[in-house]
């Protein structure tokens, strides 16, 4: 414990002064003191799985509102699921701050389009974006699809458009992604297993 001269002066001078407030009868009649109220009393609980690493920790997400029609659920807190056999309620620093991922200011909210050679995004509708992407896919496939190889064997291959699948997407998303793009003959399908 070290005390600088300045601290000493500060403590003794005003310290003695403040100490005397009580003696002079300035003590408030009731100094309110209580813990902060528990903030999750009626929050909606939902079970989920942490989307980061492969431990697959169980989490409980606490949402504002009771799922009634007029309340828009927004998550206010996330913590570990104590029943989960692996994490048993614990979470790492990333898992413990999942709320800040869900509510990140960098979440995308609308479909956007960047035209060739420009340097900004413009907001577009889902229909416009998906119609255009569907057409681009079909045009490229129709133009570059290989029905047969040089030896005349059917190969049904489309190599000029590729797909990278999400490592945090669900099995259902991964499966449907695979089904759709293989059906189109796509060969350049990959996921994040390598990187």
């Amino acid at each position: 414990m070290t005390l600088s001269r300045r601290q000493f002066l500060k403590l003794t001078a005003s310290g003695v002064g403040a100490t005397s407030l009580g003696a002079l009868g300035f003590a408030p009649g009731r100094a309110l003191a209580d813990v902060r109220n528990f903030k999750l009393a009626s929050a909606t609980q939902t079970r989920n799985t942490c989307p980061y690493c492969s431990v697959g920790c169980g989490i409980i997400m606490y949402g504002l509102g009771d799922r009634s029609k007029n309340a828009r659920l927004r998550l206010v807190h996330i913590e570990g699921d104590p029943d989960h056999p692996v994490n048993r309620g614990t979470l790492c620093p990333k898992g413990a701050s999942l709320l800040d991922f869900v509510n990140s200011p960098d979440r995308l909210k609308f479909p956007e389009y960047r035209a060739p050679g420009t340097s900004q995004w413009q907001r577009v509708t889902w229909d416009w974006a998906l119609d255009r992407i569907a057409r681009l896919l079909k045009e490229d496939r129709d133009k570059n699809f290989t029905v047969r190889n040089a030896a005349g064997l059917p190969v049904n291959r489309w190599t000029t458009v590729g797909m990278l699948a999400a490592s945090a997407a669900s099995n259902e998303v991964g499966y449907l992604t695979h089904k759709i793009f293989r059906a189109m003959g796509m060969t350049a399908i990959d996921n994040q297993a390598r990187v």
Partner: protein
Amino acid sequence: MTNHWTDIKNANVIVVMGGNPAEAHPCGFKWVTEAKAHNKARLIVIDPRFTRTAAVADQYVPIRPGTDIAFLGGVINYLVSNDAIQHAYVRAYTNAPFIVRQDYAFDDGIFSGYDEASRKYDRSSWVYELGPDGYAKVDPTLQDPRCVYQLLKKHYSRYTPEMVSSITGAPKEDFLAACKTIASTATPDRTMTSLYALGWTQHTVGSQNIRAMAVVQLLLGNMGMAGGGVNALRGHSNIQGLTDVGVLSDLLPGYLTMPQEKDKDLDTYLAPRTLKPLRPGQLSYWQNYPKFFVSLQKAWWGDAATKENGFAYEYLPKLDRLYDILTVFELMHQGKVNGYICQGFNPLAAAPNKAKSSEALSKLKFLVVIDPLVTETSNFWRNAGEHNPVDPARIETEVFRLPSSCFAEEDGSLTNSSRWLQWHFKGAEPPGEGKTDLEILGELFDRVRALYAKDGGAFPDPIVRLAWPYVLPRAPSPEEIAREYNGRALADLPDPKDRTKIAVKRGEQLTTFAQLADDGSTAAGCWIYTGSFTDKNNMARRETDDPSGLGLAPGWAWAWPLNRRILYNAASCDPTGKPWDPRRAVVRWNGEKWVGPDVPDFKLDQPPESGMAPFIMNAEGVGRIFALDKMAEGPLPEHYEPFESPIGKNPLHQRPVASTNPAARIFPDDRAALGTADKFPHAATTYRLTEHFHFWTKHARIPAVLQPEQFVEIGEALAREKGIRQGERIKVRSNRGEIIAKALVTKRLRPLTVAGRTVHTVGIPIHWGFEGLTHPGYLANTLTPVVGDANVQTPEFKAFIVTVEKLGVA
């Protein structure tokens, strides 16, 4: 993982090598803590860096990046020379007694059959000697000089402690101390677990790093045991699942493989994949390949897949080459790729050589990014100053950015490293107009299909006839998809024991892949997932009971295959069906059938004395010390230098071509972009920090607070040499680019003496970029080389070379 997270607590020795679970998998690492506390387990960490895992280890051994096989080869040599192997296990459950063909050879770093021009092996000599009965020959005494055990012994005799120390830089006494601890588990009542991650895979010898540990674990009798195994700690929450459902260029769901050009019809495709037993009485489970494949085709093309049309075999594309991400970026760079869809994937940040990736993306006509967050890839055209110095006006790519929901805003399952499929539930709406990935896929495919139905086009059949039985075609539900990959009966299925009875009625969900048929009477989109969604969603199970006390948690979620928690668990019993160690009995033979707290990995009614061996997926029934012709660069792991090596030459081999992995693929431009040790003298490696997850969490406030700014770690000796002080800015250069960051000077990176000279290691955390809440930084992959593992093309992020310059005070 062959085992599972909680099982780590059953280990006596934990070897962490090629991973850093305390930082990358903290909540799984708790089971290491438990093993130490309740099992008096020893934790050994072998790593170029003194990590936060090393901080709580009993022993830390430093090694130079990219020398793991040299170290493990030394361990194998130690075990064999000191007779520290579990003999009964090795004789009965490994291919140690198998006789290898006479013309198999190994000389000066090159195995038999090498063709230097194509950099490929003719692997036909790397197989067993077959007897007149068609079965492999064996010598149970292990004395035949051509048996695997003798070949192994000879192969690793070169890996002496002195050689190991010279290559890896690990002090000899530290290496020997680690060997001693590892060898202590060669008894039936002690097990060792191996925990690894991308520290092993991201090398040109990545697959062989893992193989080397598999050999060690087979010699010690640790495979199939509780507290044993070779355990991959997968990097992402569902990379196991994405791999299981086969979303890789050369795979189909359930580890079925994509047809190649040479597989001209269904029979040609199936024959080499339908593996017949290589020893008498073996199960060789891949004999069932046609059932899995036909059921997949029925799930995808339904009524359009008939016996007559080879179950729509023609609809599948036939590969002329591998289309892994490195190849695709090479093709893109050559202008041969026009469109790219990135679904929750940020390749500009994640792929090697950022300059090349950036040029490649600029050559695309269109790029579609589906993501919950802003990513560097979606903004690759944006000039972000020094961190992304591009000119948007010169980039003609049109880019779409589609907002997707995140985990919290959707239902579905993720498969963790334990192979557990865990179902999760939606707890909020996505912000703004965000949609779930299934909706985006449904909307997009429905449009494509409508265009083909209306206008026709190139081979429309596989598209217009794709089974799409979803109630809302533009929004398939997660449950509908899960039911589909689980599979169902398309006709009444007879009971195999009494064919007059019906076991599964038409339309019912299947409960096991044993019900699958190759006649079109079943559909299942991913055979290893059969059982996950039966009459109920087993992935959503939440029973916490653990009757065995071994942490199996059999009622929690659902593990593939068949809710089995430990793979190869029949090997946890001796050849009479009795557990090697009664304290960790997971299965046993009760005289009539296999029983136990885990689901037996065996034919349930097959008596042990029948001679059927426990590695039922292998045609010979035993674990492979010798990998036959399955690996690109050889049947036994051999040390090859990283493609960028700080010592330039492999101390084990004279032939230049055997300095680095002779079978690894490298494109000409990428080879030209490799640096040499005279200009780039320091070993470098990239890695994660515990506070961040890849390039996501820099968008989340708290992780950004916990690690706000890019830095590079250098040892005190290197810092002294260069006059660099803590916190000063330094420039790190490779032959592909440079990054500027603050220096973190640490005792935890120490110089190693390698082949007589001093090698410093430079540590480069990956988490920064030109987007996010953290301070802007350089993408670490500006520095990394484009060359991958010879078998699976995982890029060599964990061993390359750089030079370091001091820039001065920040």
